[in-house]
């Protein structure tokens, strides 16, 4: 009996063992994905709480909600939590962990025990950083620039640095796991160019994780050591160069933004194909664009340092390379748009997030080109223009991709359907709230409002109030899915194995899948996104 006619199988990964030990000692990549889902959601709301306080303080021109020192701690912890404990792990460790083995037809990742260990490392690092937050916070900015972070700051730099150091290994080991799995565990017939594009993006992300994270690891370790032992690598009084820290920090942290956005792009490829019932236009170009972004992303870090003291000549090199890195991203946007052309375009929730992503990522990406031009960057660097730029990509891009993917694969993960009307409403609230929050920041930044200050000239208040109002709407939008997704676990309609009628190995197995993912190892004979044949024809 084809698995697609069974609404819910009697045995699946969620009822394969009960009790907390069966979750905390699991080796099942699907359960580990849910462990990550719980942790990243927790850290997201911690970072979100910081954002609420920031936007509250910024509603008035005077810095009157908190002291200057506390404000420094708020934006630092917001950045640290959101970057290292939400944006970097979210899509790879939640959606990637769940989907990578299923999408290639394997029973699990290459190293299941290492996968569980990665989660424990992630949580340990997070707890270190939470400890730093609770016992007084850090005030250096998430960028830890020296020599303030190594010499002058009197806050909890060391536990935060150690927390980031520990968590970095979670990224490294997850990336390692994905690379080996994709190379060595594809099912018979699953060639590289038959893989869903989500896997190409995940693979490219994993390359960045493996190549870049070790450098931030040694960098934060050096910050901690310098604080304790006063080595002098970044201290001018001891012959050191503070800009060296920035080189090392940004060598990772620029590619890190591609760790954050590439998986979201992978999700969008899946959503667009399913939502338009068409193969993604120019599949090889999108696949190679993912690799190109990963490679080129390592060559541009100096564009964060145009005013820091790097030489004009290296600034010019980094500037030109930064223009180049926009090209593969643009290729993807063109190809998704071309996919939608003459497609059976759907307006399901997941598709709403995909359209939101394409528009907002484009705006964020184009403003990145402004910043790649040295002359313009000198004017807007360290203003709210930069903040708006990266929030358009991280929130308008990555978080939209994450939510879209979460909705799209929710039936597969849980076996249930969520309330579509509520979901569409939340997507709309998020889109409106997001734009109201961050578009005014482009304007106020260009007009000269600096970042990391909570006091500003009264002329900027209207725009700031708009932004804070938007933030409250955005917050509501983020809370709603928590409720209706949880509600669906108990009361949602049973989904069946392929509620969207999509093409992909994950839709040929039951919802939820069995622990070993498939009752029989699939043998793949069809191309990716082969919507000409009916979905049932893809059951092995």
């Amino acid at each position, binding site marked *: 009996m084809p698995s697609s006619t069974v609404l819910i199988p009697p045995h699946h990964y969620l009822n394969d063992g009960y009790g907390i030990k069966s979750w905390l000692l699991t080796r099942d990549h699907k359960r580990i994905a849910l462990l990550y889902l719980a942790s990243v959601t927790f850290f997201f709301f911690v970072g979100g709480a910081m954002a609420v306080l920031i936007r509250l303080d910024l509603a008035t021109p005077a810095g009157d909600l908190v002291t200057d020192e506390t404000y420094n701690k708020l934006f630092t912890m917001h950045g640290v939590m959101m970057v290292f404990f939400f944006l970097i792990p979210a899509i790879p460790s939640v959606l990637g962990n769940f989907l990578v083995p299923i999408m290639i037809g394997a029973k699990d990742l290459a190293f299941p025990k290492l996968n569980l260990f990665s989660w424990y490392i992630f949580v340990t690092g997070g707890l270190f950083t939470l400890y730093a937050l609770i016992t007084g916070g850090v005030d250096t900015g998430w960028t830890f620039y020296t020599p303030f972070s190594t010499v002058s700051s009197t806050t909890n730099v060391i536990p935060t640095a150690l927390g980031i150091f520990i968590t970095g290994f979670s990224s490294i080991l997850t990336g390692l796991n994905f690379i*080996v799995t994709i190379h*060595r*565990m594809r099912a018979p017939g699953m060639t590289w160019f038959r893989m869903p594009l989500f896997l190409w993006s995940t693979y490219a992300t994993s390359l960045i994780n493996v190549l870049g994270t*070790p450098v931030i690891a*040694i960098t934060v370790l*050096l910050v901690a050591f310098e604080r304790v032992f006063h080595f002098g690598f970044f201290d001018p009084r001891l012959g050191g*160069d503070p800009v060296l820290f920035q080189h090392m920090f940004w060598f990772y942290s620029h590619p890190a933004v591609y760790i954050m956005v590439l998986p979201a792009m992978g999700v969008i490829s899946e959503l667009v194909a399913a939502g338009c019932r068409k193969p993604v236009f120019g599949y090889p170009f999108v696949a190679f664009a993912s690799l190109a972004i990963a490679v080129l992303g390592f060559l541009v870090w100096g564009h964060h340092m145009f005013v820091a003291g790097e030489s004009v000549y290296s600034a010019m090199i980094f500037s030109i390379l930064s223009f180049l890195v926009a090209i593969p991203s643009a290729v993807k946007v063109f190809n998704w748009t071309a996919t939608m052309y003459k497609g059976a375009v759907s307006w399901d929730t997941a598709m709403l997030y995909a359209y939101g992503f394409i528009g907002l990522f484009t705006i964020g990406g184009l403003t990145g080109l402004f910043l790649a031009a040295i002359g313009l960057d000198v004017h807007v660097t360290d203003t709210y223009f930069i903040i708006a730029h990266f929030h358009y990509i991280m929130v308008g891009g990555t978080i939209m991709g994450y939510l879209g993917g979460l909705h799209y694969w929710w039936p597969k993960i849980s076996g249930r359907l969520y309330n579509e009307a509520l979901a569409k409403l939340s997507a709309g609230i998020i889109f409106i709230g997001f734009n109201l929050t961050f578009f005014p920041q482009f304007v106020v930044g260009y007009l000269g409002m600096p970042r990391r200050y909570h006091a500003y000239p009264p002329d900027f208040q209207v725009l700031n109030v708009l932004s804070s109002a938007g933030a409250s709407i955005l917050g509501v939008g983020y809370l709603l899915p928590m409720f209706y997704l949880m509600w669906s676990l108990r009361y949602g309609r049973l989904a069946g194995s392929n509620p969207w009628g999509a093409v992909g190995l994950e839709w040929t197995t039951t919802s939820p899948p069995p622990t070993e993912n498939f*009752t029989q190892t699939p043998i793949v004979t069809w191309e990716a996104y082969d919507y000409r044949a009916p979905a049932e024809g893809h059951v092995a």
Partner: protein
Amino acid sequence: MLPEAAHHPHVPGLAHHFDNLEQQAEATTLGMWVFLVTEVLFFGGLFLVYTVYRTWYPEAFAAASHSLDITLGTINTAVLITSSLTMALAVHAAQLGQRKLLMLFLVATMALGLVFLGIKSVEYYQKFVEHHVPGPSFHFEEPQYAVHAQIFFSLYFLMTGLHALHMIIGFGIMTFMLWWAWRGTITAEYYSPIEIAGLYWHFVDIVWIFLFPLLYLLGRHAH
């Protein structure tokens, strides 16, 4: 249980999510190589710091390097190279199913590792006595180079210390390998743990192959 499992009798050493030992061996080897890539970039950050400050302070670095004991450094280099030989021979013995020889070469590798760490301790003690340890008690004989020599010694302790930590971890890994060899877990069909332990050990040797000239061989001719 999968219907296919009925056709696969339990193969010793085969994890259930792999199809066969060959796939498992290929996966674990690739996994170790990818891990070594991360180690290249991890140590690479320190080599970058070294490169920058060596470029900025060549005389101070040469003077500081000259104070290191080149005899002990050279002996340690020879010790590590020999340990790589014994490690390669251990893998060779494992491939041929020669259990006793495998254990012998593992013990030899571990012993040489201990010799290396012992000599390193002696060197660290020497630096301590000479007040070359960065910090409040630091004192360098040539005062015009003192500030920048401290950067050299900071790098010396950081880089060799991180290297020594990796050697200690390698010693722990070898202990596990020795135990598995003794228990008979390692056979001519299933020896990939030894192979990947060997890859790790050789990598640690390679790091030292670069540390030795960069730290010990500057400025030997000038004084």
